[in-house]
């Protein structure tokens, strides 16, 4: 009596992703907040560091920290609508692969991060970065894209854990930050040479490799354990 109509994993994930993007477009709550947060943080770093321009490792560190904390805002809100408006039950009732929810939420977070960086990275170039951004952009985009995958995967996993806890606003960040540390080290160290005044503009292969390894390992691991977070 298995139902042939039931959609496959990817079609389900796309349906959920579509719904999430529609909800974000209607509410315009999460992404604008992430962008504003990042811009304010750049201003804080300007005053905190007492510098008009920064470059190299310092610039990479400032950019990584800013994007990380802006991403945390999105991660905290990722499952809020599901919990408060019955989205979990509605999804769990449907004859679909539960892992599709992980895939959809990670993709949604990836879209949010891309939009954030589309604005925050040029703003960083204008406000703080010493050397011109133009020629450094491809290398930076490569490192940030790999970092975004790590943020999306771990963010989704941690958010799915945190949303069912009492102290959900605290559990997400305190579990997520140490778990993300290896990826953040790699993003910061990989972007450092890219943003240096006399850099070649290419990220060191070692860091790209570590980021890719991190992404693959945790994507597979999240895929394996995600179902257990939805059962009741």
């Amino acid at each position, binding site marked *: 009596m298995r139902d042939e109509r039931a959609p496959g994993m990817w079609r389900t994930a796309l349906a959920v992703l579509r719904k999430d993007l529609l909800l974000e477009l209607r509410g315009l709550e999460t992404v604008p907040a992430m962008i504003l947060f990042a811009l304010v943080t750049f201003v804080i770093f300007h005053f905190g560091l007492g510098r008009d321009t920064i470059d190299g490792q310092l610039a990479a560190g400032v950019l990584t920290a800013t994007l990380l904390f802006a991403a945390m805002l999105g991660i905290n809100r990722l499952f809020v609508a599901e919990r408060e408006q019955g989205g979990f039950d509605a999804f769990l009732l449907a004859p679909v692969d539960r892992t599709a929810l992980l895939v959809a939420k990670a993709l949604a977070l990836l879209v949010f991060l891309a939009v954030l960086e589309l604005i925050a990275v040029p703003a960083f170039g204008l406000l703080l970065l010493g050397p011109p951004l133009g020629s450094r952009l491809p290398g930076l985009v490569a490192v940030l894209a790999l970092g975004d995958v790590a943020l999306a995967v771990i963010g989704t996993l941690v958010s799915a854990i945190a949303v069912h806890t009492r102290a959900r606003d605290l559990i997400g960040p305190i579990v997520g930050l140490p*778990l993300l540390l*290896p990826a953040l080290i790699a993003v910061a160290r990989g972007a450092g040479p890219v943003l240096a005044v006399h850099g070649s503009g290419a990220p060191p292969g070692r860091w790209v490799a570590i980021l890719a390894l991190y992404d693959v390992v945790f994507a597979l691991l999240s895929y394996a354990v995600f179902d*257990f977070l939805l059962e009741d």
Partner: protein
Amino acid sequence: MTTYGRGLRGLAIATVVTITVALALVFFYAPLDADQGFVQKIFYLHVPLAITALCGFVFGGALGAMYLRTGEARWDIRSYVAIHLALIFGVGVLLTGAIWAKASWGHWWIWSDPTLTSFLIVMLLFATYQPLRFSIEDRDRQSRYASVFAVVAGAFVPLNFIAVRAAQAYVHPRVLTLAGGNLPGSMRLVFVVSLLGIALLYVTLWKYEMAAKNTRMQVRALRRALLGDDAVSSLKRSAAPS
């Protein structure tokens, strides 16, 4: 039900004997380090503690995976005890590491040692295990989420060491590496005995805590069976499974 108390006495005696022998060897047999002098002997406590704690974290992850496979609560309890003890050992690692760093290099903390830095990050992650459990009220969900955490964090341990080691531009010249690959023979013997002692201590404590939890659960189950469900006061909110 497994009886964790079986063999506990023999194990405890073996632990005491091994640790006594290890201490005697450390103080009276192990050679003084040429550069660092007496304080280097903290190595025989620091490194075995670190190895045992890391193995304890990974062990907890494996037990968590067993819980997810079987759904039997006892695996979650085993995982909890493994991680909880590894955390206590881990605090010892950070303290002895700081003392060693202060005595050798004059600073309480040195970032240039990738092993110690990695260990700090692992500790920061596992320190969230108890708050996470404490924050979930439903017992089944607590077990499931804690096991998911244990599995993910267990896999995190090796990846983290790779990333941090790569981040260090140079490794601070250390007399001894963690693996003990280039230890002189006499030091190696003392190190192995110390490691055995600490590992035995971990296993003894693990079995001891499991026996205590097991007994408490059996008492509760008996009370429920004899007096009925409502006669047993419900458990207080707690991070510890029982």
